[in-house]
């Protein structure tokens, strides 16, 4: 049996190399997010946002941009036989789940590295919230990566995967988005970051991440069976 850590590293490195070479997911995700910010800016006719409105704009945009990456996460495995190659190898299939979730997490963090500064330039009066916001982004990304990997691995076998993935995923991430917007709202308050109930929302995010990481690890083996 190949050690899980080695299999995880091999699959993650393969996915990151393929994305760096082809740029199939990240540019589309970033373009979508920046376009959405431009539309919000002119649609709302506001040069500055704060509180719940800022939080809603940020998370709605990030969630739908993430969907583009989630939909493509397993396409290469499906279309190029990667599932079979991995199923033939003496590895714990949980390594595939962990590596795919880690790859998606890297994509989301890279996306945010580009688009959150754009969001700040478009809508925020000060950059003071960006530090604590990074923690919220990281925890929400972890949840999105776990849930997205799980749903994407199921949807990819369907011909209607572009429709099926979001249909199943969106209801599942509602609690995650409520917690993420709840944690972000006081940070983006008009008069600078406020930490009212910040810890509670972070705890909810952590709990969500833990639950879906454990579910993903536990059921992924069954999802790969014929």
């Amino acid at each position: 049996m190949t050690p899980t850590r080695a299999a995880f590293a091999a699959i993650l490195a393969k996915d990151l190399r393929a994305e760096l070479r082809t740029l199939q997911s990240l540019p589309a995700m970033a373009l979508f997010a920046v376009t959405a910010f431009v539309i919000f800016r002119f649609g709302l006719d506001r040069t500055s946002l704060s509180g719940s409105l800022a939080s809603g704009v940020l998370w709605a945009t990030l969630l739908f941009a993430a969907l583009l990456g989630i939909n493509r996460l397993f396409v290469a495995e499906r279309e190029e036989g990667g599932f079979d190659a991995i199923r033939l190898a003496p590895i714990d299939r949980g390594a595939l789940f962990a590596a795919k979730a880690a790859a998606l997490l890297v994509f989301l963090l890279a996306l945010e590295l580009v688009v959150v500064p754009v969001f700040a330039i478009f809508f925020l009066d000060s950059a003071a919230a960006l530090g604590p916001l990074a923690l919220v982004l990281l925890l929400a990304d972890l949840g999105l990566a776990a849930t997205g990997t799980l749903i994407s691995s199921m949807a990819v076998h369907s011909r209607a995967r572009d429709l099926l993935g979001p249909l199943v995923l969106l209801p599942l991430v509602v609690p995650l988005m409520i917690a993420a917007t709840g944690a972000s709202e006081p940070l983006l308050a008009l008069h600078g970051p406020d930490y009212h109930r910040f810890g509670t929302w972070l705890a909810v995010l952590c709990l969500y991440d833990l639950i879906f990481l454990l579910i993903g690890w536990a059921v992924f083996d069954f999802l790969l069976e014929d």
Partner: protein
Amino acid sequence: MEAGQAHEEPALRLAGLRRDFGERTALESVGLELCRGETLVVLGPNGAGKTTLLRILATLLRPSGGEATVLGRSLPGEAWKLRGRIGYLGHEPLLYRDLSGRENLRFQARLHGVGRGAAERRIEELLRATGMRRRADERVAELSAGMRQRLSICRCVLHGPELLLLDEPDSNLDAAGRELARALIGPAPERTRVLVTHDPERHLPEADQVLRLGVGEAAVVS
């Protein structure tokens, strides 16, 4: 003790093996025993279940009924113990189009737990043996179907499998490619092979046993 016992077991023991897809039976009542080092050639028209049989033996499909023991391990219960001991060459090359041939082989070597130094030596040896050394650093998407098949053969034998499951291994290969492939996946005393072919004239002389599958008919072993 266990290893010794396992070695005396036939490489394959199938009894009443069946696979259904919904209401359609793709494979019906296959029974045979194949010793280690032997070659089983599987013949039959399209839709007879040849690829289904190979995918069951490769642990990629679960049988719907009957018994299958591969290299001493019972399917599907002990399938996980077989992975890594089988080399599977299917219709799909199982190669990532956006990686080079060499990167694909390195990836497979890592999945199979082949150490870095040993993997590099083995990859170099296989690329040389299949005439792919000069094109190994090109993306798979840029290679011809024949070259992908050569790389796929490298992938299939990279980890030193005990059992080779070959589904039309000559597909897309030219005469030179077929000869090069023969050295890696052709008959040899240490190689146990199950070979699906539509070219019986070429492969029947290699056969120790022949399994003839028919659409909706019982399998015949000769």
